[in-house]
């Protein structure tokens, strides 16, 4: 028996030593000095502050109710030295509906989407501190801006696990070989704020993905655990694919959580290969999205307060985007939503514009 305990102790000591060695190697890889970065960054122009963002105007008719939606989302980017970037995005949105007296009126929402400081420590690691967009799936972080999204209505599952984060995040991307890149994000949100316009929750989570440059395929998985209230988990999968032979862009997300589960899959096809009206077709994109939402273990009122449907829902959307010039596009879409809470049509028409203004004389062309 004594021998057995001694054996167990020795084995445990060896395991700890093995683990600490692995951890050291791991940390050494990630906290390597930013030699490569600094050496090459010097070859390029010094970054300058810029003000960018999106402005747009949409008219949507949902179940016969017309809403005039005006949006302005300024993004401020301030690089500091070779390794720092301070970035922020605000959201100003006016949603105007017809009032009983015939005029249009409604609230103007103001919201701080993110205000974060990024420290690019080395080619493998960036440390972010502040308020940041939660890296769950790909829509919330990368496809959300009006000028990027192919269809203006949000996916039904967007509110799941995408509450703002106030805390810190480690993230990065690096090549595994010449054909595959790996990217990751790990974060913790440490505050729970419920003030109007500044809301967040305590949670921890991460995302990992692979990008295969050959087939231009990106796949990834996200996970989040809420550290307040019911402390539930959410898991998601995402996919992005741009096949080389055709101007098609496919995106999809799947999520499973206590709040609800679902998926969306979307394809956007640029008509640049059409053999007629070539000039106009090159600027035209047709889009289709199918999505489904399954109610979770929360009440329909709670779901609606989160922006989720009140019941199981199926929706199909079709749209056309016309790129008038760089950063300026006209959008139109039609969607049909089917659920036990009621079926309805949703029409959207509008225009979205992305602007970029270099700040300071030195940054101008």
């Amino acid at each position, binding site marked *: 028996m004594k021998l057995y305990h001694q054996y167990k102790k020795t084995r445990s000591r060896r395991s700890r030593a093995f683990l600490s060695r692995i951890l050291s190697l791991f940390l050494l890889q990630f906290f390597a000095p930013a030699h490569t970065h600094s050496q090459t960054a010097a070859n390029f122009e010094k970054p300058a502050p810029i003000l960018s963002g999106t402005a747009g105007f949409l008219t949507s008719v949902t179940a016969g109710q017309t809403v005039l939606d005006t949006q302005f989302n300024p993004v401020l*980017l301030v690089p500091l030295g070779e390794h720092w970037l301070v970035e922020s995005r605000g959201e100003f949105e006016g949603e105007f509906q017809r009032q009983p007296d015939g005029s249009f009126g409604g609230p103007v929402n103001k919201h701080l989407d993110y205000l974060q400081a990024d420290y690019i420590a080395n080619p*493998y690691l960036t440390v972010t501190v502040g308020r940041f967009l939660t890296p769950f799936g790909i829509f919330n972080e990368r496809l959300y801006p009006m000028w990027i999204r192919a269809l203006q209505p949000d996916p039904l599952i967007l509110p799941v696990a995408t509450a703002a984060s106030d805390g810190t995040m480690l993230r990065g991307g690096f090549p595994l070989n010449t054909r595959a890149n790996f990217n990751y994000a790990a974060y913790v949100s440490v505050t729970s704020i419920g003030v109007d316009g500044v809301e967040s929750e305590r949670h921890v989570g991460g995302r990992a993905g692979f990008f295969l440059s050959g087939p231009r395929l990106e796949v990834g998985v996200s996970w989040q655990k809420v550290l307040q209230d019911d402390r539930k988990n959410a898991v998601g999968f995402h996919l992005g694919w741009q096949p080389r032979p055709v101007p098609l862009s496919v995106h999809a997300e799947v999520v499973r959580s206590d709040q609800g589960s679902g998926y969306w899959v979307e394809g956007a096809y640029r008509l640049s290969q059409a053999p007629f009206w070539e000039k106009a077709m090159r600027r035209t994109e047709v889009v289709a999205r199918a999505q489904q939402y399954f109610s979770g273990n929360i009440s329909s009122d709670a779901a609606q307060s989160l922006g989720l449907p009140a019941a199981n829902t199926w929706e199909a959307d079709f749209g056309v985007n016309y790129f008038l010039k760089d950063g300026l596009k006209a959008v139109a879409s039609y969607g049909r939503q089917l659920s036990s809470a009621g079926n309805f049509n949703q029409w959207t028409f509008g225009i979205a514009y992305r602007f970029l203004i270099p700040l300071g004389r030195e940054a101008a062309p």
Partner: protein
Amino acid sequence: MKPVPVLVFAIILGFTALAGSSNKKETSAVTPVTHATDADSMRSLGEQRFRANCGRCHAAPQKFPPRAMATVLRHMRVRATITDEDMRLVLFYMTQ
């Protein structure tokens, strides 16, 4: 000792080791970025990386002033987790 943490660490170490080794390969493949004078091949590589990375989310934007472009690329490096090599090549392509 539980096998799961060891497995997780082994996988992470595998990734980082792969990244480290492939980075060496990549560095040699990307050496032209810092040393070669063949700007055309760099532009070509940069265009490839531009289409592969930027096209994942949005249509190709126009070229901006070099200093503004450098800021945009730093932003995209963080937002879209673009690799260091890809960022440098795309920046070269977009500013030359």
